[in-house]
């Protein structure tokens, strides 16, 4: 088992040191950020990379971000000239087609780490931006990415000359609606990278560059070894599954996501034959998001959740490109803002595929959908306000446990924003309800987690709301005889009128409107008739399951 060349104690110490650096970067980013979506919801991630751009360590924030750090870096590295790097340089990208990015709202920054004039690594961070110009919020009808957000191709800028009042910073500030927040959040990312670089230099100073270099190689091999050993234990074979999106936002034709996981020895190759073609709306999922979703799912299914992830874990997993023109590898420059929807279907489908061979390791599909509710509001002469309220949903049940109620989706890890913080930050809406939805968890021997109702009361006319979500028509399916969770719903209650909202779109709101967003539940695991009567009784007492459902679905008599 032991191919580690570094002295054992040094190896342990450095491996843990790499993780500590990524975590410190993350806490710096979140604590210094301005926007609620980062500082309260924590929609941001950090990683440490070696000079070759391989991921050494990551802070455990948002899996979808984290496992695409490498493609974003690689795109920068291909397009930019390393010889022009200095300690003041920063690489930036959010370009999904030429820059290894996901959607334009996620901006990646990489800062080179120099020790004694030698390039010894990169500190990377990514944050979610509620506004970086162009469309207000999510734009279902954007014809292309140019209508979605400001685009940053892989580029290099200098902190000394382009930032802190320099051209680049001024250009960004001039083209966004909330320059203080946007520049503040970019500064928080830069502060995180700065901390990462400083700490990594200290590590090199204490241990010597050669020892650190060897420990990195060993640490990646260690990750690879763990991953291979676990894949080896899974019987060889091709495991397949499919998942669906409700539609492309314009039609109600389901969008199929199909995966095939071929396990051979200690390797696994994932392909997407049979997956739907690209769409004309912002539901396309660029390559980097697809790769990230597969890597995240493989980590979840295959290894112990406590093992720290690095580049070595990626090596035994080959993610084949979906054909160009697939929704999982769209042609330039189709819109991609809601890429999380298809990405998480890829995740769920990979997990589901493995239910055939390691049923005890996986859960039933959960609601597994990012629901983003954004509100934009501006009063003449007042600063522009954009708030992003992010929701996960009910988790799928496992073989021995009920799904968790309303937590962020498996590719995200955002916090909800406290109602009191949300209301103190703006004066145009209140949150009137945030409650679990009875009967929303898919019935089963083990029950899916419940989704939540979140409702917002508008206090002003002219609030612009954008929404993207899924599973309105086709809910999270159950597994092994378990039943599906409840689908999601969204509507605007305007006096007597009830206006049903589609899962993706935008709408103008009036004072007095009540926006009700009902998040769906996770799928059940095993037949409902096999549910332990004590668990069912507790569900009824706690209002998770109604008496009617207990009778009609679980077959409870009396």
């Amino acid at each position: 088992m032991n191919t580690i060349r570094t002295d054992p104690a040094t190896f342990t110490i450095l491996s843990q040191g790499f993780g500590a650096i990524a975590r410190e970067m993350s806490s710096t980013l979140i604590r210094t950020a301005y926007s609620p979506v980062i500082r309260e919801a924590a929609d941001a991630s950090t990683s440490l990379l070696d000079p070759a751009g391989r991921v050494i360590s990551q802070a455990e924030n948002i899996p979808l971000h984290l496992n695409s750090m490498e493609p974003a870096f690689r795109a920068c590295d291909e397009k930019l000239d390393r010889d022009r790097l200095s300690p003041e340089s920063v690489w930036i990208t959010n370009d999904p087609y030429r820059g290894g990015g996901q959607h334009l709202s996620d901006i990646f920054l990489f800062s080179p780490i120099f020790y004694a004039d030698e390039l010894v690594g990169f500190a990377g961070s990514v944050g979610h931006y509620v506004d970086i110009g162009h469309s207000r919020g999510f734009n279902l009808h954007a014809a292309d990415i140019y209508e979605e957000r400001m685009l940053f191709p892989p580029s290099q800028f200098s902190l000394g000359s382009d930032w802190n009042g320099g051209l680049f910073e001024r250009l960004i500030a001039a083209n966004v609606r909330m320059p203080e927040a946007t520049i503040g959040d970019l500064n928080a990312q830069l502060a995180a990278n700065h901390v990462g670089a400083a700490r990594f230099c200290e590590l090199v100073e204490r241990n010597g560059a050669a020892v650190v270099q060897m420990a990195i190689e060993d640490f990646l091999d260690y990750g690879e070894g763990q991953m291979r050993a676990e894949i080896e234990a899974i019987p060889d074979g091709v495991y397949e599954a499919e998942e669906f999106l409700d539609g492309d936002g314009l039609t109600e034709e389901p969008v199929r996501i199909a995966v095939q996981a071929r396990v051979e020895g200690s390797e696994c190759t994932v392909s997407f034959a049979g997956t739907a073609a690209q769409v004309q709306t912002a539901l396309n999922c660029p390559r980097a998001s697809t790769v990230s979703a597969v890597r995240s799912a493989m980590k979840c299914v295959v290894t112990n959740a406590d093992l720290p992830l690095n580049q070595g874990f990626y090596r035994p997993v080959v993610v084949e490109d979906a054909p160009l023109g697939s929704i999982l590898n769209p042609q330039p420059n189709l819109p991609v803002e809601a890429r999380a929807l298809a990405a998480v279907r890829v995740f769920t489908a990979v997990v589901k595929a493995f239910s055939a061979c390691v049923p005890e390791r996986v859960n039933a599909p959960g609601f597994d959908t990012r629901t983003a509710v954004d509100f934009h509001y501006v009063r003449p002469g007042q600063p522009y306000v954009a708030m992003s309220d992010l929701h996960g949903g009910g988790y799928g049940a496992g073989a021995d446990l009920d799904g968790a109620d309303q937590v962020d989706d498996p590719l995200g890890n955002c916090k909800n924003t406290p109602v009191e913080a949300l209301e103190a930050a703006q004066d145009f809406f209140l949150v009137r309800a945030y409650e679990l939805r009875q009967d929303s968890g898919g019935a089963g021997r083990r029950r899916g987690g419940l989704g939540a109702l979140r409702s917002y009361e508008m206090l002003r006319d002219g609030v612009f709301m954008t929404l993207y979500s899924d599973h309105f028509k086709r809910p999270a399916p159950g597994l092994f005889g378990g039943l599906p969770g409840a689908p999601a719903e969204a509507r605007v209650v305007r006096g007597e009128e009830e206006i049903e909202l589609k899962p993706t779109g935008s709408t103008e709101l009036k004072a007095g409107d009540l926006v009700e967003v009902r998040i769906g539940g996770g799928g059940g695991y095993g037949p409902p008739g096999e549910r332990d009567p004590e668990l069912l009784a507790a569900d009824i007492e706690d209002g998770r399951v109604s008496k009617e459902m207990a009778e009609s679905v679980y077959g409870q008599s009396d």
Partner: protein
Amino acid sequence: MSRLLAIEVGGTFTDAFSLDLAAGEVRTAKVPSTPRDPALAVQSLLEGPLAAAGGEEGGSEFLHGSTVATNALLERKGADVALVTSEGMRDVLELQRGDKRRIYDLLYEKPKPLIRRSRSFAVSERLGPDGAVRVPLDEAGASAVAERIAALDLEGVAVCTLHSYANPEHEQRIGALLERALPAGTPILLSSDLVPQFREYERANTTVMSAYIAPRVSTYLDRLEAAVESEDLRFFVMQSNGGVVPPRGAAERPINTFLSGPAAGVIGAAAAAGREGVKDFITLDMGGTSTDVSVVRDGRPQMVSQVEIDGLPIQAPAVDMTTVGAGGGSLAWTDRGGMLRVGPRSAGADPGPVCYGWGGTEPTVTDANVVTNIIRGSQQIGGQVELQAEAAAEACASVGEPLGLDPLSTADSILRIADQHMIGAIRLMTTERGLDPRDHALVAFGGAGPLHAARLARDLGIPTVIVPQHAGLLSAYGLAIAPIVRHHARTAIRPLAELTGEELGERFAELEGDARAELSEHGYASEGIEVRRELDVRYHGQGYELTVAIGAGQAAVDAIAAEFHAAHRQRYGYARESEPVEVVNWRVIATIERADASELLLRDAETGGVAAEESIYVNGEWIPARFLPRADVSSEPLEGPVVIEEPTSATFVPAEWTVRRGDSGSLILTRRDNR
């Protein structure tokens, strides 16, 4: 006062200190804790080693810290209570914050709420963030909820409605309706009274947790009070904020009694270091299963206003502390990928380290210290247990062999990895907060802290290590000397630009009034109370605050911005002086110093033992080292390598260090090549 008695119940051991002022006699004791009924260990101490020598004329003080609240929480054995909240928010405890602690876990389980969902009730009412009433309280609905709760025959009710920190009227009215419906004496806790601070989940959980553990804490304290009862006895209970309160104060705010043991240790460290003239230092409290690290600046422990226990957040003032799973009993093992690991699993007290011969087979940090002979294999533990050095070496061999390490190198590796866990905790508390560890001394205590401290200090560039007297019992010492402390805080988000000296004065006067009223209820006159003021401040738009101390009047208001910018720059490396600043939380800290017994308590203890010379294994070679009883160390510096032994701990002084006895009896370790 004639007698001072401090008993600190920890997870594994119960430590005690007594001072008979008339006789000038200090006694200490350490006995195994009795987790099922912590009062048993206390009683056995009171009847045994700490039995009063004679009359108690002049009164005595009994100070106590325990893990009763923590145990009730961890075992989910608190009271059966209900929550009343705003309409639409009844699932606040279930929904929590929506994120996960383990992102790659498909079978994720949320922290379990303290009450089940059916115990959560909502009433129609609504305030805005400024406290203005948006929906009036539905009195009939609230009464109906009160009746339904009354029918459940519960042990208490927590009330937490939205924005109640800005206006307590609705909660107070709901409380009154509950009081009318429930049997007399049922505890009804209002969040606006306990923790008037924003973020509804954290506040609701804090209020519910108070109701949940209060009866357990009260019952325990009542029993104990009866057991120690005597004329003229003053009883005090330790809190996480580093101060004590009378038992009624603790019973009213039981959440303040979590983590009181580690806080007491920091108070003890501050007193001991202060007597050596050291005000800025890092504490290292290394026990059997874990190590606690905190930072003291200018003699004051750094504080936080929220802590987390078992995944549940509590808004309670506490000494800011990081805990890592590296203690003397932490186990060494090799994971499936071939990485040598130490902790977080621990051998605990049973079976304990291999060298104790109580059945342990996996090597611990203590075993590694025995194999390297820094803990002498020829020594007896507690005068009873013959250490089994060979068994410890065999255990190290079995872990090290697959890695190609001999037993000695394995032991050395275990120590280095354990050290690194502690160094990580120290960096988290210093460099990650903009502090340079080299500007601090390291104060080491707990049974194992002084063995490791100098090695950590060397790696961190810390020039001085201080090992207080009674290092193995420092929590009990801290308990004996802790002042009476209460924090009162409230959220009122105010733009700094709009703030006047007058408003500042009014808001603080109100908080100060609350603090003085509470202390006067406990029988303390106003004169002896020292009140400090603090504000939690942030840039408008930020989500986290930094705390600044503040004086009075317009000058104080004018100073806030500069203090905040400076604090922000220190913590995060930059400040934005043109950005608007806002005040978020207002806090007063009321302190009453108790009679100062710190010097009396630091009298040299009779340690016994004889000097010896043996080899120790350090940096890959066996070198000769001296072993001395603590009493043999004088103010004349001794050069390392030397190990100072005493009954409850031992101090390792490496070759490049010297050690001397400080003015107050602490051991002062200094790096010789002080750069």
